[in-house]
């Protein structure tokens, strides 16, 4: 698949094309996932979900994080938009968090150990691409997955290039699958 910005192609290795199902599989395997959310999905007008596509995306992201209890880092100036929704995230710079992620010794956002899977969404395409490249080369200990509507060859797995509509569908599907999975797990636990 051609990268969204065609020249971000970096070499023979390309991301696998991901879909909600494959992301679920990766999340299930991961012990300490992390979610990085950037300013591109933030509506600068501050609209709400009823009218605004970006707000819908944001809302799906929050749900996904909550469902699977994934700690969230907001980069750029994405923090405030989540705060308004009463959703607590850790504000950082994208470069700052990538730098921490590449250090195998870092203890992770929750101090429980370095993360092993990182979801990205909404980070400015080319800076994300550079950060993913850093992780691809220098962070063998983790898997990177992008949930943008843009194909990111530097990730390990990436959603394909797609329309807004399909993107929202993918995220909704991810959310619902996680919910079901959660219920299953809870059922098992209860048993």
């Amino acid at each position, binding site marked *: 698949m051609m990268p*969204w*910005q*065609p*020249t971000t192609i*970096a*070499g*023979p*290795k390309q991301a696998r094309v991901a879909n909600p199902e494959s992301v679920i599989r990766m999340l299930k395997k991961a012990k300490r996932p992390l979610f990085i959310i*950037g*300013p591109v999905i933030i509506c600068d007008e501050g609209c709400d979900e009823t009218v605004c596509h970006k707000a819908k995306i944001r809302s799906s992201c929050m749900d996904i994080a909550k469902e699977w209890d994934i700690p969230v880092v907001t*980069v*750029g*100036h994405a*923090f*405030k938009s989540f*705060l308004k929704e009463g959703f607590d995230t*850790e*504000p950082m*710079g*994208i*470069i*700052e968090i*990538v*730098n*921490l992620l*590449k*250090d195998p010794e*870092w203890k992770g956002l929750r101090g429980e150990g370095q993360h092993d899977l990182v979801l990205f969404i909404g*980070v*400015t*395409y*080319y*800076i994300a691409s*550079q*950060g993913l*490249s*850093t992780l*691809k*080369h*220098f962070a*063998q200990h983790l898997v990177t997955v992008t949930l943008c509507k843009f194909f990111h060859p530097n990730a390990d797995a990436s959603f394909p290039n797609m329309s807004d509509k399909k993107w929202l569908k993918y995220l909704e599907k991810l959310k619902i699958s996680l919910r079901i999975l959660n219920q299953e797990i809870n059922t098992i636990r209860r048993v």
Partner: protein
Amino acid sequence: MTLKGIKELQNEIWMIKNLKANFGELRLNRNWDEPMGPTSKPNVTDLRAWDFKLLSRFEPFYAPFCDMCCMCTFGKCDLLGKKGACGINADAQQARTFLLSCCIGTAAHTAHAHHLLKHLIEKKGENFPIDLGMNIDIEAPIMRTVIGEKPGKLGDFRKVLDYCEEQLTYLLSATHTGQEGNILDFESKTFHAGMIDELSKEVCDISQIAAYGMPKGEEDVPLIELGLGVVDKEKPVILCIGHNVAPGAEIVDYTNDKGLYNEVEVCGICCSAIDISRRDKNAKIIGPLSKQLEFIRSGIADVIVVDEQCIRTDVLEEALKNNSTVIVTTDNACYGLPDRTNEDADKTVSDLIERRIDGALILDAEKVGEIAVKTALRISKDRRNIKILPDLKEVTKYAEDCIKCRMCERTCPNSFPVFDAIQDAGEGQFSKLLEVYEICYSCGKCEESCKADLPLVSMLTKVGGHYLKNQNYRIRQGRGPIQDVEIRKVGRPIVFGEIPGIIAFVGCTNYPKGGEEIAKMAEEFLKRNYIVVATGCSAMSIGEYKDKEGITLYEKYEDVFGAGGLVNLGSCVSNAHVSGACIKIANIFAKKPLRANYEEIADYILNRIGACGVAFGAYSQKASAITAGINRWGIPAIVGPHGTKFKRLLLGRKDKKESWKVNDLRSGEVVEGEPSPEHLLYAAETKEEVIALIPKICIRVNDTPKGRQTKLTNYIDLHQKYIETFPNDLHLFVRNRNDIPITYRKQVTEFLESKGWKPKEAPFEPSLMDFKKEEGR
């Protein structure tokens, strides 16, 4: 020759040598009784120990732009988890390409300095004095610190450039396949390249200031006209593009000499524009790099004079489309044009006018002056009909042909919504296209990739030209170095932290969302009493913004190097005065000897002077060299999101306490430090991130409690304003209760408690330098 003859001759030589040596000393160091320091003309590895100290705090962060290396015929090699055929691995390869980038950047500045110096020496003589006036004694702080000498006359700069060129050759050599292999050594060399770049810039700016009588750091220099709308299209228009002032200066001199300055419009783009206006305040500035293609496409320029650096390489092709004439003036960019340096000027003018040649290479700046003016005067009438007003119907017609491939949007470096805008334009709606116009930097990628071959840049230009007819702004004339007297005034409040920082907005226009963001950043800090200085394209971007009252920041804020002052230092080479000012603070205020004393000065700056550079739109190899140069002095820099494509940053880790230890030279003890500055080179994604970061990155270990309070207040304020939350690392910057800002006392105290904060002692004389060995040990 008899044996005796030879002996005699040898004696003579010996005498001459000695005499010459003494004489050289004498001239160069008249009135300079400071003893020579340890680092005169440092060789590649001489400051390696200092560099390694910096690098142990600020570790290189690499973001490969490509997994492969294609530099030799063993390649391409895929370096993703593998070594190349030469044994190199991915991180060293990144370090290597960054060094290469810095070498190219440094070469650009050094070559520029050398070209200009040769011209000035030819014009004014070897012995033309370097005199920056009564208020500047320390005329060349970088040269003094690095070379250990000071310039008395133009000719003295020659040996500085010899040194630069020698070092540059060594550095470039290290990028050859099969040379350096270690990232730290690559980075040390990168710093060295940066330092050479600093020297070259200083040589360049000081010689042009001296020889062309540009402002010598005086406060309150005049305002210059700026903007696409300031040119009188009715007159013959000469456009100068690039960085080397010589041809442009000769053009304005020629018009002035011939009493033609009312007949011809001389304007410029990029640094040439700034520097020509430092020579002649009537010259006009079109704007920064971002306006280049647009303005050429507009057809307004009758003659385009190109010198060097940051010129679109397709100027000739684009100019020919509009029947503009092109004159190229240096060996850096000759465009295949015939060399008319030694041809009769009038013959060349008529060849140009009759279109017998597409343009001319003229390597004699004075001749360029004559030919450009004469040509412009004669062709402008014929070109009248080209400078027509834009027709929006044409734009709509083109837009209707869009085949909706979306490549415009996908190849736009900033993913600007060109696609949507074109759809609207197809329906006669231009507001979106106008929005794109205002933030677009006319790189032309959308147009190049358009599958329907729409002339997208021309369409943008037409829409912009239609709606924004009078783009008329103001910028200060570039005033060059900071005067010693100003340094004396601000030295103490800066070192103590009471002026919360010096922020230098520098570099190019590879902005993520248009130039206005630079102005808005500048304004935020001007309001808060930071010292704001600017150079090059960023200085222009600041000028291209008007507040609600319709005035520019240059009109609104005083032209002083003091709290809340906004100073345009000049062109890119004037960046030398940013570190120059810091060096002078160390020397004048703190009495640190600067002569050949690099490490101590840099150590002082790193630990005590809250300065930082912001190159939000850094794009070229020069920009990479500039950041390396200021970084080695201990001055941090922030680049914009595209800055990640330099592939290398220098990041501190505030969570790693050990890396922030400092030596307290007073007590002789190693003490706990602070993560300040937190990074040496950081890339921020958005303007908001930059604004929230600046106050923090201006914190220095040496701040007084009062100073620290001011800095923390700004940090909290701006973090709350732009990120909308309290900064969660604040505890790292509070040494003891005296540091807590009064206005935020309660909030901070609570926060500190939540973090289990404990007070610590501030070192008296924080330093990364080794403790001096006691005598006899």
